[in-house]
């Protein structure tokens, strides 16, 4: 397969990773900043990317900034925040057309880098704070964004499950921030926090595209001069195992019930047994040949979606399906039975073969997009292990049925969450 090797450069305040490749029609720069998830900072971190792109010294409003992007042949800039285990990651992405496909353009990459630098290092500041008006607007937008999770029932149900399951653990915090924490934020405190973020977060910068690695790294050092810092030592959190299964039911005026079963496992990405866990999740519910899809959907016609998902950095596994409420007991039973089957090693050769083939396919496919490649690299960087893509593929390949069953045995059901409709259908 086509693998593209990454070159890493050390800069005082960040690591720079460059992937030279000519296969895209665009060049991409990604900045990732991570810090521990905390109730006190999660909402400010969710707000920051939106305030930062609402005005820089050179482009004093959101509209001016957007115009500057459009001028660069629709350079795409976006910023978001996400959880990675118990860490909160801010990602800033700048993607711009490779000038060689355009008539009479040359320095799009450099100009895009300057824009990104403007956002991070030269935001618009008045009297030692972000502009009052911008912060107010973005606070309102953030409140609306948080409220709107309620409107997407599948997402809402997943979020509620995590909240119920991880009480007392910062993992319960939503990456998008807490509604009640938005109001108290002010433009001064936010700016002060941003300064702290800039000087203490763990930062990685990625450049992917038709570039020369050395040159690109030098340019990053000049335009993104993060200061030297002491990086925090990562503390390993102890896995908590539930004593009994918690059942939570909520009712809303909706048509389809959302069943989400949350489980814990001690195996995370950093664990050598992680590939076994991945294979296990594949056999159980990640694909259309998986046990949940075959039994809940194909055999019993109970659901349209029936699957399992794994958060590899937390050891959180979720089984989910959208069902009629009258089928709640039956579906919970089938899902538990399927989990029991994999624990007992009832995995066919075919299931094993199919799952490995699709996991490997996914991994190779992710290397086809700039963002996919960065995500694969970042798994290693953020968890402090080294599992290059070739090795990862081999590890998946060598997982045995017994190893997958061993991984399954670490899974414990913690919470069964059901978002039910008002009327029993």
């Amino acid at each position, binding site marked *: 397969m086509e693998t593209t090797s990454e070159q890493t450069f050390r800069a005082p305040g960040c690591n720079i990773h460059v992937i030279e490749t000519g296969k*895209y029609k665009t060049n991409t720069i990604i900045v990732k900043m991570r810090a521990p998830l905390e109730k006190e900072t999660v909402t400010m971190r969710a707000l920051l990317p939106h305030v930062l792109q609402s005005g820089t010294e050179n482009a004093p409003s959101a509209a001016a900034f957007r115009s500057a992007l459009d001028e660069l042949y*629709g350079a795409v800039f976006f910023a978001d925040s996400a959880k990675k285990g118990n860490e909160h990651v801010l990602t800033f992405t700048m993607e711009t057309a490779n000038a060689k496909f355009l*008539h009479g353009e040359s320095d799009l990459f450099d100009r895009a880098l300057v824009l990104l630098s403007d956002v991070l290092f030269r935001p618009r500041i008045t009297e030692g704070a972000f502009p009052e008006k911008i912060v107010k607007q973005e606070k309102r*937008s953030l409140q609306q964004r948080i409220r709107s999770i309620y409107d997407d*029932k599948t997402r809402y149900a997943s979020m509620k499950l995590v909240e119920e399951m991880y009480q007392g653990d910062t993992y319960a915090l939503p990456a998008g921030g807490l509604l009640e924490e938005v109001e108290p934020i002010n433009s001064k405190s936010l700016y002060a926090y941003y300064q702290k973020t800039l000087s203490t977060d763990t930062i990685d910068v990625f450049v992917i595209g038709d570039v020369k690695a050395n040159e690109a790294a030098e340019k990053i050092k000049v335009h993104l001069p993060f200061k030297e810092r002491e990086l925090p030592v990562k503390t390993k959190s102890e896995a908590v195992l539930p004593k009994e299964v918690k059942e939570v039911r909520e009712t809303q005026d909706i048509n389809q019930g959302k069943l989400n079963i949350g489980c814990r496992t001690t195996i995370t990405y950093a664990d050598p047994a992680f590939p076994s866990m991945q294979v296990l999740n594949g056999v159980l519910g990640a694909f259309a*040949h998986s046990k949940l899809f075959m039994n809940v959907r194909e055999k019993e*016609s109970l659901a349209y979606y029936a699957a399992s998902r794994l958060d590899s950095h937390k050891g959180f596994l979720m089984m989910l399906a959208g069902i009629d409420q009258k089928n709640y007991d039956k579906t919970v039973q089938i899902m538990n039975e399927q989990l029991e089957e994999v624990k007992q090693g009832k995995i066919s050769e075919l299931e094993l073969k199919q799952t490995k083939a699709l996991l490997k*396919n996914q991994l*190779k496919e992710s290397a086809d997009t700039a963002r996919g490649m960065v995500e694969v690299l970042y798994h290693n960087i953020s968890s402090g292990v080294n599992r290059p893509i070739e090795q990862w593929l081999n590890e998946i390949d060598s997982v045995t049925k017994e190893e997958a069953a061993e991984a399954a045995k670490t899974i414990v059901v913690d919470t069964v969450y059901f978002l039910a409709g008002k009327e029993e259908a």
Partner: protein
Amino acid sequence: MEKTVFDQMNETVYHEKLTNGLNVYIVPKKGFNKTYVTFTTNYGSIDNDFIPNGEKEFLHVPDGIAHFLEHKMFEKEDGDVFQKFSSQGASANAFTSFTRTAYLFSATSNVKENTETLIDFVQAPYFTEQTVEKEKGIIGQEIRMYDDNPDWRVYFGLIENLYKNHPVKIDIAGTVESIADITKDHLYTCYKTFYHPVNMTLFIVGPVDPEEMMAFVRENQDKKSFPDPIPVERRFPEEQNESAVKHRSIKMSVKTPKCEVGLKFPVLDLQGAEKLKYEFAAELLLEILFGKSAPFYEKAYNSGIIDETFGFDYTGERGFSFAIIGGDSEKPEKLSEQIKNQLLEAKKGKHITEEAFERARKKKIGAALRALNSPEFIANQFTRYQFNGLNLFETVPLLETLKVEDVIEFAQKQIDENSFSSCFVEPKETA
């Protein structure tokens, strides 16, 4: 096999129309791991009134049947085709739109085997009463899921407002009631009418050898026999230019209201470059009026009536074309009023400046290039373009020739207040 090189885009397209009428396109992508293949029929949810292959009278079929057929294609006498794709390391899927049904896979290995599986399963229908009944439960849950999705409801609510008779107003999956009437005979009838190779396109994009792949497909098709093709005769009801319903509000279990404004465009008989130009003029107009760098967006955002969910979309397919503008809003009435005003001002020539046009055009060119990084985009959009008599790789060169006058003229001619409509989703009052 003919070869067309698009120099500026650094892409080459290989094409052959096989003897049975199937169009095959191959776009080699060096350096990629993934091969993405789609097998698409020019048949979607709007094709519900037609003369079945071999008959003389028009037949009207139940709503949601094209989508139902798509689901049922995967099940065979010896089990589910997903199983076979999984064994061969491919991730398979399918989708049904207003005008197309596509079957597809992506794979980083066994590309020939998977291509063969794809073609063979779509060309071998197997429907029984029992499997058709079983699917009704699954699709019923799919429909319920969409019923709870406010974005889908506001989108379809608006299309229902815009169209009086045209079947574009019917939900692609149908309703729990309409799919109850579907039988295996219906499925065979639709299959025979719309799945003839002459009505289909196979598109392959990835790190493949074009000669070798084409020979492989040719050989596969030569082994099969198909009846002589009969042109499909479809019938669509007469549709007025005005929107059918001016406004509706849907109450749902949500916290944030949604507001979408739509305008329906008259159906013009354009082909090739003319058609592409029309489509781009529409898209650039929307970007100029409502894009993130437009004064409208800034003003509406600053006054708090929109948030970043605000956006717009142009849809142009055979027999219908419309635009939709909107997003989440705490003040849907106000937003809808302002969107309509903005459109009417544009009709009179306001807002469409040379500067705004130039910015929008550059943005669109960049987006077109970026999209060519994606094999999924290339296959799906190339097929859509091809069914409409267009060529995807002509996008950027054509965009480079477009002028601000084209957009001004489009706004003047195509914006009509009578074709406007709005649809809101609003929170249900809780007792």
